[in-house]
Structure formats: structure tokens, C-alpha cells
């Protein structure tokens, strides 16, 4: 195969590329320039610092493969960053890593790779692709702590057919050891955790810079009574209790939590803890990693990266899906991605529109 190995400058993508070379593929290393700074060059912080680009280049040198930087910053701005800000503006909770896999790595990059005569894009994601009688399946990685199948669950079969994940059957510690053995200097580089375009991790300040203030009222979800005000909807997350400036005391001192937001307004709903326990989730834009599952299937669902897996019954309609959870889940917000699993296999994903108790 002719493979484009996305080299972030980190240890995982380095070992993934090395394994592609070992497998006998014709491999080209590509570093994606995603963020832009003032001078029109790759950003000085975040996922594409000059240091990361340099580390990626050195990995390619050691592996003896060609290396190029692809400027995907325009696509990334539009598909990931703008979408992130707009989603928050609409009261949704987006996951930019999912968007990036969906629209950049396994769309813009894969399309370009294919047009240029390459067969696949290899990344250092921890997930497994399994060939079965039903076709290609996406499975959890064997390293539970590192499993990234959640952020890949949005990929459609044509996208999956051009994806290579060489690390799904390996534990992170072994990947580091392998990097060291191969003489890759990135072996002990720390993992990145933050959203790459918010390197300081302060999402609230980032959104404040882009959206300004978004004042509104805090409203009691049961009585409709106004209990106070807030200055930014995006600073409040479902399940939050601290930092609410409630001016009306709660009856009998019950604690009150953010439970949701009125669609199309800046009114944030506040209520008792029971309302946070979600038993039913509705979601739209379903995508199946293979055949559409029968309705009423028993699955496990997950609503955030590395989140709990809950047993559930999956109800499939033509345009949307719902899941009924066997045990309650907290902190479910519209915009999050719902992923359904059958054992380790990803069944599909959908975007959460409503969560009810």
C-alpha cells in the first residue's frame, strides 16, 4: 500500500509510521499545519508548534521516509474552530477532536492522499480495525486507558476503508518502549491532552474572546422563576453547581444545578440534582460503522471520551436514534457525541439533541 502517515511530532504517530514502514508499505510522512498565527505561518503554540514540526521531521529522517508539511489551516479553521465556537454559541457542547477526525484527517487529508495516488492515512490513534465477514469494523483498542475509538466513531465506512491504526493492539507503555528502541527521540515526550488550539486549556477565556459576554437569566426549571443572572452561557456546563450567583435561596436548602438551557435563548435552566440523572438520550445524524443495527439492540453507550460505558437499548428511526439507559448517567448535554458499542465493536454514533430523566 501507499500510505500517508500523519506525523504530529508525538510518540504515537511516530511509532505508527514506523510500523507502516516495517509492514512494507510505501510511506510518506505528513505534518499537518492546522493553526495559523499572525504571519501566516504555523502557530507558535498548540498542536503545530515549530517544535512539533521539527520533531515530526526528525522522525521521518530516522525512518528514512519523505516528509512534507500540509497546510490544512483554512479547512481546520472553518470545520473545527469555527464550528467549535458556533456550537458553544448555540448552547451545544462540541468535541473538536471528533470534528477534526471527521472533517480533516479522514476527509480533507484522506481525499488529498487518495487523489495523489495514496491508499490510506495512518495515525497514532488507539483503536483497532478488524476485517470481518460484514466488512471493516472499528473496535476499541486493547489499552482501555488509551482507547480512542470514541473520537473515531463518526467515521463512515468509506472513511474507515482509508484509515490505518497501527497501535490498536499495543499498550501505551509498550509504544514508548518501542519508540526508545527504534531511536525515536520523541519516546518520552509527554502526551498532549488539551484542545490543540487552546493550548493553555482555558476554554472559557477562549470562548469569551471569541463570543464576548452572553448574559442571561438563571431560571428555575420547575417554577419558571428567575433566580439570578449569569454573564456567559458557555461558561456554564450541565451538572455545574459552584459559581452560580443565585439570589433567591433554595427551599429547604436543596442544592441546585445547571440542568440545561432554553434553546435559542441565553436563559439557563437550574434545578435539583434528580434532573441531572439521565435515563433517555435522543440523538440525530446517526452514522453506522457498517450495517444499520436492528432497533431494540442491546448496546453499551458512551457520551464522552474515556467516559463510563452504560448498558442501554438502542432505538433506531430513519432520521434519529434514542437510547434507554439501564443505569442513570450524569452530565449529558446536547452537542455531545453518543457512541454505541457492541462489545468492543463500534456500532455507530449520533449527535445528542435531548437528554431526559
Amino acid at each position, binding site marked *: 500500500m501507499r500510505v500517508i502517515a500523519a506525523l504530529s511530532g508525538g510518540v504515537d504517530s511516530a511509532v505508527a509510521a514506523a510500523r507502516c514502514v516495517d509492514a512494507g508499505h510505501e510511506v510518506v510522512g505528513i505534518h499537518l499545519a492546522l493553526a495559523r498565527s499572525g504571519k501566516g505561518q*504555523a502557530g507558535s503554540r498548540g498542536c503545530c508548534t515549530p517544535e512539533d*514540526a521539527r520533531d515530526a521531521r526528525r522522525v521521518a529522517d530516522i525512518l528514512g521516509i*519523505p516528509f512534507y508539511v500540509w*497546510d490544512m489551516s*483554512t479547512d481546520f479553521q472553518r470545520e473545527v474552530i469555527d464550528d467549535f465556537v458556533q456550537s458553544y454559541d448555540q448552547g451545544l457542547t462540541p468535541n473538536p477532536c471528533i470534528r477534526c477526525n471527521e472533517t480533516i484527517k479522514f476527509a480533507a487529508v484522506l481525499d488529498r492522499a487518495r*487523489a*495523489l495516488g495514496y491508499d490510506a492515512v495512518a495515525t497514532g490513534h488507539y483503536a483497532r480495525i478488524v476485517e470481518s465477514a460484514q466488512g471493516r469494523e472499528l473496535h476499541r483498542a486493547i489499552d482501555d486507558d488509551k482507547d480512542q475509538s470514541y473520537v473515531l466513531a463518526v467515521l463512515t465506512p468509506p472513511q474507515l476503508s482509508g484509515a490505518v491504526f497501527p497501535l490498536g493492539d499495543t499498550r501505551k507503555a509498550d509504544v514508548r518502549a518501542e519508540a526508545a528502541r527504534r531511536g525515536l527521540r520523541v519516546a518520552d515526550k509527554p502526551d498532549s491532552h488539551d484542545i490543540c488550539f487552546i493550548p493553555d486549556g482555558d476554554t472559557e477565556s477562549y470562548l469569551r474572546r471569541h463570543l464576548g459576554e452572553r448574559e442571561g437569566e438563571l431560571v428555575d426549571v420547575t417554577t419558571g422563576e428567575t433566580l439570578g443572572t449569569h454573564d456567559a452561557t458557555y461558561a456554564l456546563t450541565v451538572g455545574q453547581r459552584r459559581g452560580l450567583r443565585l439570589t433567591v435561596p433554595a427551599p429547604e436548602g436543596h442544592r441546585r444545578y445547571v440542568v440545561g438551557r432554553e434553546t435559542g435563548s441565553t436563559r439557563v435552566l437550574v434545578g435539583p440534582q434528580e434532573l441531572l440523572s439521565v435515563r433517555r438520550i435522543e440523538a440525530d445524524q446517526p452514522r453506522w460503522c457498517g450495517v444499520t443495527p436492528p432497533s431494540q439492540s442491546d448496546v453499551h453507550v458512551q457520551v464522552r471520551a474515556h467516559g463510563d460505558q452504560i448498558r442501554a437499548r438502542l432505538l433506531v428511526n430513519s432520521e434519529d436514534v434514542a437510547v434507554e439507559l439501564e443505569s442513570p448517567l450524569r452530565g449529558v448535554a446536547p452537542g455531545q457525541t453518543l457512541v454505541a458499542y457492541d462489545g468492543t465493536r463500534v456500532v455507530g454514533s449520533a449527535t445528542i439533541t435531548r437528554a431526559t430523566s
Partner: protein
Amino acid sequence: MTPPRAYVDHAASTPILDSAAEAWLRASAKVGNPSALHGSGRAARRIVEESRESIADDLGVRPSEVIFTAGGTEADNLAIKGLAWAAPERPRILCSAIEHHAVLDPVLWLAEQGRPVDWIPVDSIGRVSVDDIRERLSDDVALCTVMWANNEVGTIQPVAEIAAACADAGVPFHTDAVQALGHVPVNAGLRGITSLALSGHKIGAPVGVGVLVLDRDARVVPVLHGGGQERDVRSGTVDAASAAAMAVAVRHAVKEQQAHADRVRLLRDALAVGILDRVPQAVLNGSPEESLPGHVHASFPGCEGDALLMLLDAAGVECSTGSACTSGVPEPSHVLLAMGVDPALARGSLRFSLGRTSTEDDVDRILEVLPRAVERASRAGSPTFRTVS
């Protein structure tokens, strides 16, 4: 089996001459700081001064007008900043729109410091107009800078006339002749040339050595302050070995210029005709008559230059998109934009630059693999303008 490779990026760097490498090795084996007063120092100084004299003879200037630098970039910076700083009472700078970054960026930096800059426009082949420059010359101009030949499209400028016009107006004139030397006749002693920059690795000397030819009456403020080794305008221990190699390479460039130009021009013409024949939609930039003999610069509609580069590299052809870019992120070339080329088309451009070691086989190799690369690159299109499905 590795396929044959065609190196057609001589404008970026050309192989070192055996004779230059030998000169470097010989001189580098000896100890001695050229500024030292003992025997070893004198021996090193002698190498430097003989190299200086040799270069001065070849370029038509006096030995004292040859200043060794650590490359073309330093030579350009010293001329541009040095001349501008030396004339604070003359604020304006005239600079062509198609300069190499080694000139462009110092001028932009001076502009940020408050110096007004006239960007001299070029026509569709990338040439400035002498009349235009003449009209802009006045006694508030600190310097005018126009390169001898452009590194991307290869266009040669009417340097003698510009220099004469500057001399008439009493304005210092700098020219970056890094790409010109060895390919066209270069006379640094022309009336009106205040300073002229050269780089070693474009003519078969090592990387990291250059020359600024600086008129003995010119006033410049140094960029590097220190021991003042080079005429008090450039400090740092003079690199005798590099000076020796530079002298050998300059001699070769000047002596072989005509024969070299005649030979590579034939290859260049074959390549240019072949490109249009195999890829009819290609657009050649610049003008063959007004251009360096080894340059072919072409735009491929609907393609991204870096995609072409990658495909050609995989097929054994080593060329460039025009100007090297440190971040690796392609920008449409300011040279092509100044020539009025559409930005999307500009991004789909390649420079093939032939040199001393180029052969007909190189041309054949390029023509063999180019059509397929163009076809694939046009399928990939441009990441910036394509929408995500």
C-alpha cells in the same frame, strides 16, 4: 532498485566544485587567525588577501571593495541596513517588488522602523521599468535596490541602466547578484553600483560564505559589531578556507559563464518545449530571452505546488516551488503576485533550475514523470479552495 534522480534545483544550491573543495581543504588544514601578527597569521592573511584580489579581478573592482561575509543573506542585510542607517537624513528606500527575502525582509523591517518604502512594480515578465525608477529618484532616497536576476522566474533586470540612473541622481544602488553570477556576465564595477551581493553555494563554493562588493566611497553602518576585520564594516574572524574556495568558484563562474550558459540554455529550451508539449495547460512564467539560461518556471492550473513537488520527489525529480519556505507552509509567491499572476495559479508553480551537472537525461526524466504528477495533483486540487465533502 532506486530510480534515477534528476537534481534540478541548482538555484537553491549547486554542487560544490572539486577545485573549490580542494582549496577549502588545503586552507582549512592550516592554523592561523588572519588578524594575528605571527607567521601562521600572516600565512592565513595571505590566503584571504589573494582570494580577495582574485575575486576583485574577476568582478572588475578593487580588492578593498571585496568584503567576505557568511553568505548572501548577510551581504544583502549589510548593504540594505548599512546604507539606510548611514543616511538617516534620506529616509526613503526604493525596492523592487520581486526581491529575494534576504533583501525584502530587511526592507520590510526598515519600513516597520518608519522608513517610507517605494515598492517598484514589475511588468508581466517581472521586469522593472528604468523610467519608473528614474522618476522616483531624488535626494531623499537612501538607497535603491533591484536584483540582477530573479531567483524564482529568472528574469534579468536592466541593471546597468538602473545603476547609471542612480549615479546621475546621487542615490546609492544595491543589487543582489546571487543568482546572476556564472549564468550571465556580471560586472560589479559598472558605474553606479554601490554594492553587490554574492553567495558561495550558488556557484560551487561551500554554503556559508558570501561576498559584498562595496564601493570604497560608500558609507555603511555595520550590522555585526566587533573586531572590524573586514574594512570596519564587517566583524568576525575571516574564514580563510571559505575565502579560498569562494575565489576558486568565482573564477570558475566568470571563466566558464559563456560556455555554461550556451550549454544549459539548450537543455532549458528542450525542457520548456517538452513541458508545453506534454502538459498543454501549463503556463511558462517570465520570458526566455530576458531570463537566466537555466531557469524554467511554470504554473500548472488547478494544482498545488507542494503536491506536485511531493509527487515529483517520489518519482526522482528534485525541483522547488520557487522560494524555499522555512515553515514548510506554501504561500503564493510575492514575485508571481507582483507579475500579476492569479494567486490560485501562483500556488501551482514549479521552478526547475538547471546547472553545471545537468544533463539531457535529467530533462528526459522530468518530461517522463511530469504529466502523471500533474494529473494526480490536479485531482487533489488545492486544499485551500476545495470544500470538505
